[in-house]
């Protein structure tokens, strides 16, 4: 294999695995045929085309099946990733519950909605118990202090109702997916990479002492994912990314709503950006259509 082929193979990783298996060799052949003799590094134009083509192909592959159910599944996945991110900094104190939250995310990522139901329920009950301070069984020493990533005690500024509502949102979403019939698709392993980024409370951009502070890493991650969602909705003209974004926005709004009186302009700006991108994802599939005569 020549250095040029090897580099093109790397770029072809932008495409979904199934597409690479079916047409990777064909694309590689055309890329090598089109390259100038003696060239060892891909042209920038070709490299950019492969990355853009790969992302577009991923959207095309991701736009299969029922858009509403798939959007709900994507939204539940995002909410569960956020819930795991909330617990992750406290893994030293409550390892079992962090692990169970991870199991719930794993089950949903693999498309197992029914097995995920009891796990989400159990984790939700425990999280609500910690937030309320009422623990009839499996007593955890409160407050639960973070060992890494975060600065505040677990649910230090969150009440049990909002915690229960967040888990309830994920659980009822899963319930609908589990009993609708049909298969639930698998999702990318990349969701695991999003969890520590969402869990990290830094870099700090809100003043010290702000209720419900949001880390810059989480903000950037959420905005990047929502921008990708808007682009995917535009590319595939499909509502699933808007459904998922609405589901996630509901979970975030519940958390922010609890601190309504103490919210800063930064919180409002943050929520406004999430809401704007969610609305954009909902409307871009219905953009201008040109009429072409038969």
């Amino acid at each position, binding site marked *: 294999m020549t250095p040029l082929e090897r580099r093109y193979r790397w770029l072809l990783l932008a495409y979904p695995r199934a597409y690479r298996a079916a047409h990777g060799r*064909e*694309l590689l052949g055309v890329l090598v045929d089109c390259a100038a003799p003696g060239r060892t590094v891909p042209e920038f134009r070709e490299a950019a085309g492969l990355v853009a083509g790969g992302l577009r192909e991923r959207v095309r592959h991701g736009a299969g099946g029922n858009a509403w159910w798939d959007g709900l599944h994507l939204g539940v996945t995002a909410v569960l990733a956020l819930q795991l991110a909330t617990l992750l900094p406290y893994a030293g104190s409550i390892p079992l519950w962090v692990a169970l939250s991870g199991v719930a995310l794993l089950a949903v990522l693999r498309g197992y909605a029914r097995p995920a139901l009891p796990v989400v329920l159990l984790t939700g009950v425990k999280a609500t118990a910690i937030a309320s301070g009422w623990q009839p069984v499996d007593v955890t020493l409160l407050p639960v202090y973070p060992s890494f990533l975060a600065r505040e005690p677990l649910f230090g500024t969150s009440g049990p109702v909002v915690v229960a509502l967040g888990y309830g949102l994920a659980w009822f979403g899963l319930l609908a997916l589990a009993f609708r019939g049909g298969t639930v698709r698998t999702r990318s392993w990349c969701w695991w990479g999003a969890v520590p980024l969402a869990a990290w409370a830094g870099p700090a951009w809100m003043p010290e002492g702000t209720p419900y502070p949001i880390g810059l890493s989480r903000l950037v991650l959420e905005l990047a994912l929502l921008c990708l969602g808007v682009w995917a909705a535009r590319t595939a003209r499909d509502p699933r990314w808007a459904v998922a974004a609405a589901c996630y926005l509901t979970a975030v709004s519940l958390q922010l709503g609890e601190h309504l009186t103490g919210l800063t302009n930064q919180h409002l700006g943050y929520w406004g950006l999430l809401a704007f991108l969610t609305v954009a994802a909902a409307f871009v599939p219905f953009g201008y259509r*040109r009429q072409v005569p038969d």
Partner: protein
Amino acid sequence: MFSSMPRGTDEVSEPMYYVLTALLDGPLHGHAIMKVILELSGGRVKPSVGTLYGILERLGDRGLIVVDREETVNGRARRYFRISDSGQGVLEAEARRMQEAAALVMKRSTAHA
């Protein structure tokens, strides 16, 4: 009579137009399509390989082209694409639209001359 042709994924963009035109003379594989497009457009339209295959997949999704056959030549896999009847219809409609649009300008230019 008008059919709805959305922008972006569904509309006939310029590179799509050239791909469909290249296939009018018979089935071609990816590299050959690339060469014919370059020739037809006088070197002006030169999509990257990633862009070309994205176009081919979208045209295939819309049923405007179909895979005629698959071959392996010198160890390289090749799909030969063929324009479908609906593809030919859409291409001709697009050509008529552009002809009518161009005529609007040409008529006025001739009148002013």
